């Protein structure tokens, strides 16, 4: 539990290639499209709908990481032109690293989803029923919030402590994480209303809130929020 005195990590930069730059702006829309595509299925049958959507969300998130983000351990993205000769060689080895890091991040974020599920229960999710719904909801939140974070920040204990303490600088990934949780928090608002709508069933509104929150948080983190510190007084 001891924080070593060290400089806090810097904000993550996106690869400077044109494809990565445009894809990073496209990604939140793809995530929202995924969510709305499966929305009716999730409302009709939350367990089935959420499981299917979870697989596609994992694919989408890993694709985003591989395309746009520097994997943990490769150092930060240097916005510089590389020498023409080196390019080919570097990329082939990098792709393997990226996919490997992506898979580690996927596994880690699935483990983290257990913690998220426990947190949901603490916030008032049903304790004795709807276990799969809660777990799958946590899975979605974790894939949105922590998969890219693990991908760029690794699994170092101190980094995670800083991440939980909201000490990391705001960037695409961190903005997405905060947005996911804030969105899910706000998603709880319509649950008690007596409108008798199918979409009010657990955990549809939470997942919806998380998706919308992620998209907004990531976009803010990528733009004017970038590099900012979270003030907590």
């Amino acid at each position, binding site marked *: 539990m001891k924080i070593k005195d060290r400089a806090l990590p810097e904000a993550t930069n996106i690869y400077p290639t044109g494809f990565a730059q445009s894809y990073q702006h496209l990604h939140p829309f793809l995530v929202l499209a995924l969510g709305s595509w499966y929305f009716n299925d999730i409302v009709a049958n939350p367990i089935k709908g959420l499981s299917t959507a979870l697989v596609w969300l994992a694919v989408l998130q890993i694709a985003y990481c591989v395309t746009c983000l520097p994997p943990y351990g490769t150092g930060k993205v240097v916005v510089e032109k590389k020498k023409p000769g080196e390019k080919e060689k570097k990329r082939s080895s990098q792709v393997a690293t990226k996919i490997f890091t992506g898979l580690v991040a996927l596994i880690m974020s699935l483990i983290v989803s257990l913690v998220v599920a426990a947190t949901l*229960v603490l916030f*008032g999710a049903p304790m004795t029923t709807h276990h799969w719904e809660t777990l799958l909801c946590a899975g979605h939140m974790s894939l949105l919030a922590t998969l890219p974070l693990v991908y760029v920040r690794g699994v170092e204990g101190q980094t995670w402590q800083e991440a939980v303490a*909201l000490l990391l600088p705001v960037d695409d990934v961190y903005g997405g994480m905060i947005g996911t949780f804030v969105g899910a928090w706000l998603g709880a608002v319509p649950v*008690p*209303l007596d409108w008798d709508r199918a979409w009010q069933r657990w955990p549809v509104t939470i997942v919806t809130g998380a998706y919308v929150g992620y998209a907004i948080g990531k976009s803010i983190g990528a733009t004017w929020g970038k590099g900012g510190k979270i003030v*907590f*007084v």
Partner: protein
Amino acid sequence: MDYGEPLPSYEGIAAAFAKAKADKERDEAQGLRPATRDAAVVQKQGEVHFKAAHGLVIAFLTWILVLHALGIYLFTSGFMLTRLVLDEKSECALPPTDIGSTHTPGSPETGCWHPKSFEKAVVILIDALRYDFTVPFKSEDSEQPHHFHNALPVLYETAINNPSNAFLLPFIADPPTATMQRLKGLTTGTLPTFVDVGSNFAGADIGEDNVLAQLRNASRRIVHLGDDTWHALFPGYFEPNLTHAYDSFNVWDLHTVDNGVTDHIFPLLHPSNTSKWDVTIGHYLGVDHAGHRYGPDHPAMAAKLKQMDDTLRRIIGQIDDNTLLVVMGDHGMDSKGDHGGESDDEIQAALFMYSKRKFFGRSSPAFQTPPATAKERQVAQIDLVPTLSLLLGLPIPFNNLGAPIEEAFIGAAGDDYRNLATVNRLTAAQIHRYQHEYALARGLDGSTRVSSLSLWASANNVWNSLGKKSTQDQLKDAYSSYSAYQIETLKICRDLWARFDIPRMLSGVTILALSLVVLAVYARGIDGDRSELTPTLFAMASIGTTIGLLIGVGTTYAIPSLARDNTFAYCFAMGGIVGVGAAFWYIRRRISSPIPTSMWGWLSVIFTVALSAGFAANSFTIWEDEILLHFLVTFGVLTAISSLRQKAATDRILGTYHSILFVLLTRVASLSRLCREEQMPYCRATYYASATSSTSATWQLAIPYVVALLLPAFIRSYYDGTLSYQGSAVLWLGFALRFGLLLSAAYWTLDAADDGDWYPGYGEILKTTKIIIAQLTLAIALAFGYSTFAWSKPFLKIEDKSKKAKASKKEVIPEGNPSSITILGYANVHGSRYALLVTMWFLAIALVQKPMGAGAIAIACWQIFSLFEIIDTNKLSDTPIGPVVLGLLGSFHFFKTGHQHTLSSIQWESAFIALRTIKYPWTPILVVLNTFGAQILCAVAVPALVLWKQSPKKRGLLGDVAKAMGTHMLFYAVVNLATTMWAGHLRRHLMLYRIFCPRFMGGAVVLLIVDVVGIFMAVGGTRLSFLSIGEVFGWH
């Protein structure tokens, strides 16, 4: 009490501190050598100064309390007009006036006040039978008939084909159009008000005189079939063998109740069974349920009405000559099939009476046809009461305001005006007797009913001028004169009981809103120590209030038509608020905007405002417990994050630990639930053994023992951290608290043994023992507790050099005397000393909670101590978040101790925990401690938020206490203002009586209780702890 050796050392330190201080001051001022005597003088001056400042803080906060009380009073008196329920019953032998005919009164056989017309009656109540369901559809324009049209023609056909045997009229309900309120009106003849203040406030059963009570009095046998609401209102009135009641709440089920009624009613109508009963009531629910489920314009409604049509035809066929048949709706339904409000569609029901004899008449041939719409020839629902009573030969119920229905008394030929005048005179006389008694009981003078009294006198004049051979016109005149009296009286009563007084409500809301602003500025908008400025504020408030009162007196003389209490209260409050406003202007350099500038300030605002705004929606009001859980966990998670950001390792670790503990405890406490009806089926009650019982399960009896075993140790650990577990704290936490908790656990075991009759024959011994145990526990908590709190020294211990190896920052080495001693417990001298009060109130409150509630309130107490640590480690004692979270916590544990904001969830039996009979003021105190125990405990804890781990030398601690308590009161004041405004704004809402009004009452009562407890117990309590510490450390 014995404190052992340290006592002399204390005095030594106290003197040394005071002396050093005095020396320094004197040296600076004059350069003279100090005299020993001066230390005592300085000490005394400091004490006097503190007492004065403290008294003024209490006085100022009390002034705020008075404003809250006035605002609530004005709003309530405009909003919840109450009707006094008189217990008098009409008696058969005592008609209200001379009969004026040959009939001899007093015999139920021939008729009490008036000759009896029918031996028996069958009353068929078709719930939600709207008038237009019963009359043929007449097309205007090109409108097509709806499904509900022309489906139930039997009543109209019978009335038009045999007008002397039947009549059909619109039957107008007094809102609210809910079945229970309607049944009260249909049987008592009174108007509904929100609160009928009577002898039994808690139960639903009707205490006042009514038709059913009169029937039972006359030894008539009543059979009831159908909706079980009747059994809640009239428990034990019905013939047990013949009666069949059905659950009324399953609105999805259209047929169970109806089939049950039909199956049982026809055997009763069979000639072989008619001798077994005198009155049969059949209450059908299918039409109402079809409306709720499908709405009126639906094939299911048509089918249901056709089924009713068929049933009614069979009943009409089977009825005998001496039986009166009444068919009626208790209310209508709106276009969606719902009801409860006061729209035309909801209040227009149908009334149909039928007899095999030629009995009914019309005053005009044009009236032979039943009215085409419900706008013509309306009959009020309360008119059924005198009509039925007189037809069956019963006295008219005492509180009745209705009139006899013309068709039933005018005779088949339509010309018996003597009879009509007689029954109207009887009814009017009873109304007059009732009004007289009511005015006496309420202490009203004649001014409110001048108009009706003059009508009464003139009607009597007309009557007295009648001779044996009066003309038709003279009799008509007498009839209409008595009728005019009845109509006027009804109008006066309606004005008195059933209307909202909007100006009063608005002046109440204005006072609450402005006092909220004053409190907000006082609590959050003053820089520095507000106890310095309180004298100015209080002085200006007093001057303003006095001027306001004078203006109020002047106004009431100038405009005598204004309500005196309203004017006084309004001027009193406004004068004071203007005075404080002027004082704020005077000290404007010290005022800053109360709008928060930090995240924690905003969080406090968001919690408070979001909760308050939510009370505008019935769903958020119903699920308040879950919302509070959400907010409290959010707070815990945010403080965990904040703790992780702390620089100092101890702050980080302690803060994170207590934040996580706080969250976990919140969630564990949330498992204790008592569901309100509206939460079903999404809530499972765990507070009692089962959802339908109000006794604890056997395993729950173990909870108080676990609490007694563990909680004192947990609290001790919060004292151990700063080595404050010294002196009286050892005696109290280590022994008295635990002993008291064990006693209270024993109480609940004995209570269960007594309730469950575990030891038959020992009931009386158990009862006596448990009451003694309860009284003993309360004596430990409050008598022994308060004397400990008042007279114990600060929890410090002096250690000499030999033990100095353990020295840490928790100890202090007094200046000027470095080598000799260290003080243990110095780091939290204020907090530890004051927090003792929290544990005392905890003991008293834990006793009066059911076993599950004892567990919940213990968790609340534990959370409070964790909150102290969280606030300290995150350095939040200056922010509003601590007092606001205590408000959330108190509100949360209100639910967790088995309560809801409904009248029915009040645990009245807690009045008998320490008493055998009702004794004032103890009985209400016990019920309040049981109901609002959680809010009381949290209010008592508020000063400790700013005292926890503060240096005894810190300046302005009294101001911090005032600030924290002001903020805590502000939280409840915002909630109260919001619930008040919503209740006023939604006064026509369907759910007003079930949801918004109870929440408003809860909010108002909680605010006043928290104000009283916060000001006198909490801030008042700091006087004792400050004095005790000031004695040792001097005044700063």
